[in-house]
């Protein structure tokens, strides 16, 4: 059985890591303000999970970082530059996003889908290059979807489909990946498959991964860093062991819990108490 040592990319010299910093952002929809002044630094080269109760602003935060949503105040800095003011194509070469709900056109094959991920790297009329070809082949390979390349996306199972979407985002070849609940609607085997894939991308390629997750135990097990949110603000952040405690569960979720050690990885497992 493999043991999970904490990933420390800083120990590997020479890799260019990209910094994402959130600087005092306020954001929301229309007149509804959801985020009330968030400051945080995403640890470069690590897997970060954003957790919190429904409606706490997790997805809003991810969307604002990914410039799907404009903040009403504050800024998101990618290597020191504000993402909302940079040319969007330039940002897309460094920052990839897998949103929660996407549309699958009829008769779209997995290969078609993954090829669309090359968008930021191609001009309006430029031909398909070897680099594009290799990037798509690699994305298919890494996600285990190469054998599905000719299949229609709308006929795949949930797990296969999610891997195809991840492959599309990987074809974009960004050092930073943002994913909004990548495991929702998947069964246990498929959830593990997706989480292990993301961790592998992080370990093998130093990808900085930020994901919104619902399941705290999964977050503890697969993330190096956890950010908990409550009422549109960051409540705590740090390593799972430091952050996920009975006190935090009471504070953030209002649930009385114990934590025990995961017998496999030693990370915390949350066990709710009966009233």
């Amino acid at each position, binding site marked *: 059985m493999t043991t999970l040592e904490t990933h420390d990319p800083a120990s590997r010299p020479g890799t260019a890591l990209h910094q994402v910093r959130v600087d005092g952002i306020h954001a929301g929809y229309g007149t509804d303000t959801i985020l009330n002044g968030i400051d945080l630094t995403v640890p470069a080269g690590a897997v970060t999970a954003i957790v919190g109760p429904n409606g706490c602003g997790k997805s809003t935060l991810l*969307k604002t970082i*990914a*410039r*799907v949503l404009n903040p009403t105040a504050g800024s998101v800095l990618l290597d020191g530059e504000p993402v909302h003011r940079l040319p*969007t*194509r*330039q*940002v*897309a*070469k460094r*920052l*990839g*996003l*897998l*949103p929660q*709900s*996407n*549309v*699958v*056109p*009829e*008769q*779209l*094959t997995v290969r*078609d*889908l993954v090829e*669309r*991920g090359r*968008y*930021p790297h*191609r001009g*309006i*009329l430029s031909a398909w290059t070897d680099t594009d070809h290799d990037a798509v082949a690699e994305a298919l390979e890494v996600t285990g979807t190469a054998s599905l390349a*000719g*299949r*229609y996306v709308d*006929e795949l*199972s*949930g*797990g296969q*489909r999610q891997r195809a*979407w991840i492959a*599309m*985002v990987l074809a*974009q070849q960004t050092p930073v990946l*943002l994913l909004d609940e990548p495991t929702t*609607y*998947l*069964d246990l085997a*498929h959830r593990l498959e997706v989480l292990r894939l993301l961790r592998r991308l992080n370990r093998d390629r130093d990808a900085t991964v930020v994901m919104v997750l619902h399941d705290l135990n999964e977050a503890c097990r697969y993330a190096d860093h956890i950010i908990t949110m409550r009422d549109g603000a960051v409540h705590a952040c740090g390593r799972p062991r430091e952050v996920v405690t009975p006190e935090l569960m009471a504070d953030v979720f209002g649930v009385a819990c114990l934590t025990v050690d995961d017998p496999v990885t030693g990370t915390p497992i949350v066990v709710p108490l009966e009233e």
Partner: protein
Amino acid sequence: MSTTTATQPVARRSTRPLARLVAPLLLAGLVVALGIFGLVNGTRQIPVIDALAATVGLADGGTSFIVQQLRLPRVVVAIAAGACLGASGMLMQGLLRNPLASPDIIGVTGGASLTAVLAIGAGLPPLALPFAAAFGAASAAGVLYVFSRWTGASSVRLILVGIGVHAVTNAAVTLVVARIDPGRLGAAEVWLSGSLHARNTTHVTVVLVGAALALPLAYALLRSLATLELGDEIATGAGVPVRRTRTLLVVTSALLAGVAVAVAGPLGFVALGAPHIARRLVGPTSPATLTTSMLTGALLVLAADALGQRLLDDAALPAGVITAALGAPYLLWLLHRTGRP
């Protein structure tokens, strides 16, 4: 989203690379053949060689006149208008992520119809008609454009505004037709039925200039459209300037539809059906699909016109009547096909 793996249907794989090559070539061949058929046949049959020679003025005066002044404009207008409608519908359906969207539904055709019947009612010469219709289409597109700048053009809102524009223009057309000088009623009704009768070089110039302006834009927008179809959020993440792309797509699609309606009247179903058929033949948004959609549109209009001239012994039916009549059985077939699991 389904997460079942056990009861999966037999996996279908696309046989697309071959189709992408064969379908456009086959359709282009059919368009050329039907175009030549249109040059050859009429009240007076002209041998194929003579008809082709006449297009470049290498036949006797009478034959050259018939081909160059009467038949060639009609064939060229049919092909170009059909192609513009095919392209317009494909952009619109992709932009709105709705396979039932088309310029007829979001009011562009209605705008063109309104100004055209107004021009007829005011007694303007036939020469002014394509320009009047183009103005109407552009105005309707303008309303959609302003709206899309204003709200970011979410699909549902754009469809709602378009349906509103469509309803208002339709009501206005009915009003104009009801109050029109009885002597001009015939001309208005012929135009509204989508007729290719008596097309001339003005029509040819209008449609070719319009197509030359709008079609390159359509091709240039394809790559962004293909990504935009996957959802606004994922398109933003992939670096598509979503607002700008949507606005350009609305304008280009409206321009293409406007040009077609200006020279051929409101030809129903073509903008809706051609992209459907193209996607079935060669798959989702790609340059091959756009080309196929344009060729399918051209073929539909050419065939409808040829059929309309021959279906009844005593009268010619306008092409628009035939294309609109095709819509119902096609939609029923679609319903039947999608009704099954």
